Every structure is written in structure tokens, then in C-alpha cells.
């Protein structure tokens, strides 16, 4: 057991820190052109797609270097390294693993250069958690697939350029996981209609997406016909819980402590209240557990041991913690806490109230907590499937 980094790794951390000191001004000093310059600079460093192979424009960073980069970026509260979150998180890795050479050349550079936004067409009105039961139909006609059906809860669809789309090419199958085909489709293809849905926070960043006789060239198929489930699984596996998230959560905990220090409840400092102090301790224990879970799993990977579904552990912790921390802040500050940004008494500009409305969507998005529990119970503990 050893928490030291090699000289090369320490040098890499220093390089990231120097870069940030030079290129990341405080938020107030970031002008209009900052974001595009930032994206170009991190792209030049090959830190976008840092885990991807060099031949496709990635940075070929080692697992430890990836962790260091994420940690330092989060410590500095740096903006994202690209604007296509899904493109970087799983579409790109999926194309690298399953795509043809032509697809890699066509799609990967645009993802790395933040030129295109991707969305993910998985859930359907009748099939969310039971994803493999999807019904959106893709029929092979000549050198095209003709797609008919509907997706829903498609985050980013209102502004996405492309969609990674899960369709069914075969309906008479023994296992519902067979007969699924993954297609890459431009969102401006005739026959696609996007209807935004307003969420509980008042945003409209997810949508219904309708497909009516949408023609998709065969060369836009990712992976083999009927084998799309494997592509999906590997895509979701790429959605790793990262060291960077833990760093952000420690920062959120510090903000929460500051709130406790400055809050008075019933005429007494909130920081004197044992139940308040205990909750802060509980949050810290769970975030620290995520940190050390992550380091144990990273060690397993570094030793070449296979990871099972342990990463669901941190996903579940994060899901409950983000909501609990927001709600704790809201409750701590009473009727002021429920005021949104713009309210005269809004706490910290209403950020806690606002944030508490957003997290439920994120938690459901990557597979609901109960689905994560099924995964742990079935894949790790070996319990029978539902």
C-alpha cells in the first residue's frame, strides 16, 4: 500500500498545475472569448479524450494520469474540456471500440474539437429501465435503414447535431437483448421531430424525439446488425465515476460547512447544533468512502484485474449524496432556503434551492438507483434476476 506517485506522474501533475495557473483566470476575469480559447488550448495539450488512443487524436494518458488530470481540473474548478459531454463520455469511446476506420475518421475529430453535440436515444415511452425491450423499428431497405418510432427523455436533443440511436431490427428473437442495432443519425434528417419537455426545474433540456420514415445510410450503423446491445453496455461502462467528481463533492461539502458557519437557527449558531455537526460528518464519511473506493478500483485496474460492477457503489453514493447535501442546505436555512435565485432572502444566491431541483434528473439519467442495486445484487452477489 502506497499513496505516492512516480516522478513522471508528479511531473505531469506539475505540468497541469502550471497550465492552469497560466490559462485559467478567475471566473470574473473570463471574457467573451475565454471558452473557445480554453477549448483550443486543452485540445492542443491532448487532454481532451485523454484516455483515447493517440492514433485517433486522443492523449493516450495512463489511468493514473487520467485521475491526476481530473483531480487537478476539479480542484481548480476548471470548465469542461469539451462541449459534447456525451460525445466524450461514451459516443466517442463506443466508436473507437466498435466503429469502422471510416467512422472513426469521420466522427472522432469533431467530438474532440467540440464541433458537434451528441445526444443519446435510448429510453422510449414504454421502455426506460427495461431498456432492452425497445421497440423503435429500423428496417433494412437497400443501402438504408428506415426508422420509425419514438424516443423520450432524450437529454440534449433540442440542440444536438447527432443522435446515437438504439433501434430494433429483429422482432422475432429469443432474448430481447438480440436484434438490437445501433445507428448514428444526424438530427436534421427529414422525418425527425423534436418536442422539448419542461422538467421540474423549469428547463427544457430533454425532449421527445419522433422518427417517421427516417432514412439512415447503412454506413452509419455502429457495430454489427442485431448486436447493438453490446455497444450499449460498453457505452454505459465508459460512464465511470471519476476522481474529479469526488473532488467536486469535497468542494461542495466545504461550501456547506461555510453555510453552517454563517447560519443562525433559533437564535443560536447552527454550528453548535450536534445534529447539524453529525450530518456534516456523515457527508464527509460518504465522500471519503467514494474517494478511497475509487482508489481501490483504480489500483485493481492498474494491476490488470477485471473490474466488476463495483463502480455502481460510487454512482449510488453520489446519487443520494448530491440530493441530500442540497436538501440539507435548503432545510438548514428554513424559509429562506426555499427561495430560488432572485429571491430577496435567497441563500447563496439561491444555488442550493436551484441545485436541489436539478439533481433528481441526473440521478435517474444513468440508470435509476434501483436498477443499480439490481446490477450489484445480480452481477456481484449472484442473486437471481427479476
Amino acid at each position, binding site marked *: *500500500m*502506497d499513496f505516492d506517485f512516480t516522478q513522471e506522474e508528479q511531473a505531469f501533475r506539475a505540468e497541469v498545475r502550471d497550465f492552469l495557473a497560466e490559462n485559467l483566470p478567475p471566473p470574473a476575469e473570463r471574457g467573451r472569448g475565454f471558452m473557445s480559447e480554453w477549448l483550443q488550448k486543452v485540445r492542443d495539450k491532448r487532454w481532451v479524450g485523454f484516455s483515447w488512443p493517440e492514433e485517433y487524436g486522443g492523449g493516450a494518458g495512463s489511468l493514473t494520469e487520467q*485521475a491526476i488530470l481530473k483531480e487537478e481540473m476539479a480542484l481548480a474548478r476548471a470548465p469542461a474540456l469539451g462541449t459534447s459531454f456525451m460525445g466524450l463520455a461514451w459516443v466517442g469511446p463506443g466508436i473507437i471500440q466498435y466503429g469502422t476506420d471510416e467512422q472513426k475518421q469521420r466522427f472522432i475529430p469533431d467530438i474532440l474539437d467540440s464541433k458537434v453535440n451528441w445526444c443519446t436515444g435510448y429510453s422510449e415511452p414504454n421502455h426506460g429501465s427495461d431498456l432492452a425491450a425497445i421497440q423503435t423499428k429500423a428496417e433494412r431497405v437497400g443501402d438504408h435503414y428506415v426508422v420509425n418510432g419514438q424516443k423520450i427523455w432524450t437529454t440534449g436533443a433540442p440542440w444536438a447535431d447527432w443522435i446515437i440511436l438504439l433501434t430494433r431490427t429483429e422482432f422475432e428473437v429469443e432474448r430481447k437483448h438480440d436484434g438490437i442495432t445501433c445507428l448514428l443519425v444526424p438530427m436534421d434528417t427529414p422525418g425527425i421531430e423534436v418536442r422539448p419537455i419542461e422538467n421540474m426545474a423549469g428547463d427544457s433540456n430533454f425532449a421527445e424525439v419522433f422518427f417517421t420514415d427516417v432514412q439512415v445510410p447503412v454506413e452509419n450503423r455502429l457495430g454489427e446488425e442485431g448486436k447493438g446491445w453490446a455497444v450499449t453496455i460498453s457505452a454505459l461502462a465508459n460512464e465511470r465515476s471519476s476522481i474529479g467528481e469526488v473532488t467536486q463533492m469535497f468542494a461542495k461539502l466545504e461550501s456547506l460547512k461555510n453555510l453552517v458557519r454563517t447560519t443562525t437557527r433559533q437564535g443560536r449558531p447552527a454550528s453548535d447544533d*450536534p445534529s447539524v*455537526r453529525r450530518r456534516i460528518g456523515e457527508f464527509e464519511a460518504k465522500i471519503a468512502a467514494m474517494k478511497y473506493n475509487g482508489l481501490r478500483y483504480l489500483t485493481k485496474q492498474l494491476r490488470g484485474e477485471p473490474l466488476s460492477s463495483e463502480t455502481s457503489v460510487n454512482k449510488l453514493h453520489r446519487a443520494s449524496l448530491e440530493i441530500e447535501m442540497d436538501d440539507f442546505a435548503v432545510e438548514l436555512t428554513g424559509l429562506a432556503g426555499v427561495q430560488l435565485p432572485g429571491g430577496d432572502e435567497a441563500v447563496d444566491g439561491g444555488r442550493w434551492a436551484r441545485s436541489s431541483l436539478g439533481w433528481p434528473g441526473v440521478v435517474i439519467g444513468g440508470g435509476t438507483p434501483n436498477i443499480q442495486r439490481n446490477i450489484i445484487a445480480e452481477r456481484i452477489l449472484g442473486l*437471481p434476476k427479476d
Partner: protein
Amino acid sequence: MDFGFSEEQNLLREQVSRFMTDACPLSVVRAQNGGFPDELWRQAADLGWLALIVPEAHGGLGLKWIDLAVVLEESGRGLSPLPILSQALAATAIGRCSGDDVKSEWLPQIATGDVVFGVGLYDDPTWIDPKGVGLEGGETLTGAKPFVSDATRATHLLLATRNRERLGLAIVDAGDVTLKAQPGIDRTKPFASVSLDRVKPLAAFAMSTADLAYLTDCGAVAVTLEAIGAAEATMALTTEYAKTRIQFDNPIGKYQGVKHRLADMFIDIESFKSLAYYAAWAVDDAPEELPRAASLAKAYAADAFARIGIDGVGLHGAIGFTAEYDAQLYLKRSKWVRSAFGDADYHYQRAAALGGL
């Protein structure tokens, strides 16, 4: 960066695991009432487990608490009645607080198992603070230590004393005190009350407030390490039952009410395991981080294992409540773990204070 065990540590783990299965199964554990079979203590000593953290200069192996961690985890899995925890705590206390003469006399005997130590730090059942130490120190000791761990079969006792603000530790012969075994929920974690009447210590030395906190943290970490094994055993027992017990035409592990509870057990054990390993590493390699690490680990484990213990019995239904079935033994251990070396409430609040609140 490597947050995993070495090959040697994994071999040690296998050795302890084999010992627990072959020589100290639950049938043996159940037969004890506040004690342990002598031959098992002898074997543990011969295998070097009692010498692990004793410095080489004093007849030990000179290893660290992170090595001891695998012994505690695996013996916890089988609810071992051997007082390895108290013995290790005595070794740590003497190694840290006493002078060379005391070390040279006692550490080699601890390493060989020729002496068996019981340990009594606090005399107030809930007060983890120097003021919780009540026995007055001096040339001779007179008074009471109501909570001395593993005292009933000990040859010697290590007792904390206090004179106003000055803390001390005294080694006394178990034959020189009046011992009264106390009936406890967990028979594998026996403790006794000790009364002393003008007892002359065999050795006495000063202990700082920081020393007391360090020893308490070591105790909390040790309890948590044992709890990893015990909680995993509870989960394994209950998972096996959930796979085979048929109700409503299905194994009950198919129902989400059962399988999700088992998944939650896994999540919690993974988490306090990570916290406990880090704390065990910190004991020797980052002592400045030990207080926070120990508190986070112990607090998480105390609450989580208590839930796991209750659900381990509960998910079995009535069979889990029987004396014959093993689930109850783990539930009893979880109740002891809750209070030992500070409960969750204490440790969570301490973590908040250490975090600047």
C-alpha cells in the same frame, strides 16, 4: 499509487482464513464463555500474528498495522474469541509510551503470547476524553476499572490512570486484582470490571492526551477491521439463504425487497472497508491523518454494521432468530461494535470538528 494489499499480505490473509475455517469454526467459538482454547492462542503466536507489530529489536516482526489489518479482518469474519485486538493495543501502547526497560521486558513476551493482555482505558461508558479516565494513578492503585476488555483470561492488565490532568498507563498482574466477569451481549468480546486495592503496578509510565487519542483511534480502527469480516460473513450467509429459500414459488433473493437490501449491504461494506484500510495505513504511515480517518471509518461502520446485523437476522425470518442459527452471533457482534471505542455519534461529530467546524 497502490491502494491494495501485497502478495505477502494476501498470503497472511489466506493463512488466517484457513486457521479460522479449520481450527476455529463457529462451533468452537460458540463453546467459549469469555475465554478461548489455549492451543489456539499458542498457534496464533507460533504463526507470528501476536508479533506482527512488535519491533524487531524486541522480538517482533516489525511490521505495521496495515499488516495486522488482514489478521483482524479475517479473524473478525469468524468471530474469533482470541484477544488479538487487546494484545495489539497493549503492544502499541507500550511501544509508544514506555521507556526502553519496560519495552525490553514486556514486548518480547507479548510477541510470544506468553503474556495475555486485557486493556482498560476509559471508565465512563460513553466519555471518550481524558476525563473519562477515572482510576487515580500513583505508587499503588486503589479504585475501580469497570470496563476492561478481554480481562477474564488475561495474565496482565494494561490500565489507564489519571492524576488531575496527567495521564498514565499501568501494567498490573491479573492475579493482584479482583475481577468480575460481566455478562455482555457479545460473548466473543468479553469484558470485566476490575477493582484494585493498593495494587503495586509491575510497570507504570506516562501517557499524553495525544497518546490516549492515538490508542483510542487504533482501537476504533481495529474494531472496524474486524467488523469488515463479520459484516461480509453476515452478507454471505444471508445471500446464500436468499438464493435457496423458496417462497411464493421463487427464491426470495429474486424479490427486490430482499435483493436491494443485500445490495445496500454490499455498498456499505465496500465503503467502510475502504475507509478502514486507509485508516489502518495511516496508523503508521500518516499518523497526522489518523484521527479523521479513524473517526470516518468507525462512524460509518458502527451504523452500517448495526443495520446489516439486524437485516441479517431479519431477512432469514424466524430461523434467523434462533440460537442454533449463526446470524444471531453476528448481530450480537454488531451491537458491541457500535459502542466500542466511541459510537457513530461521537465519531461523526469529531470528524466535523476535525474538518474545521
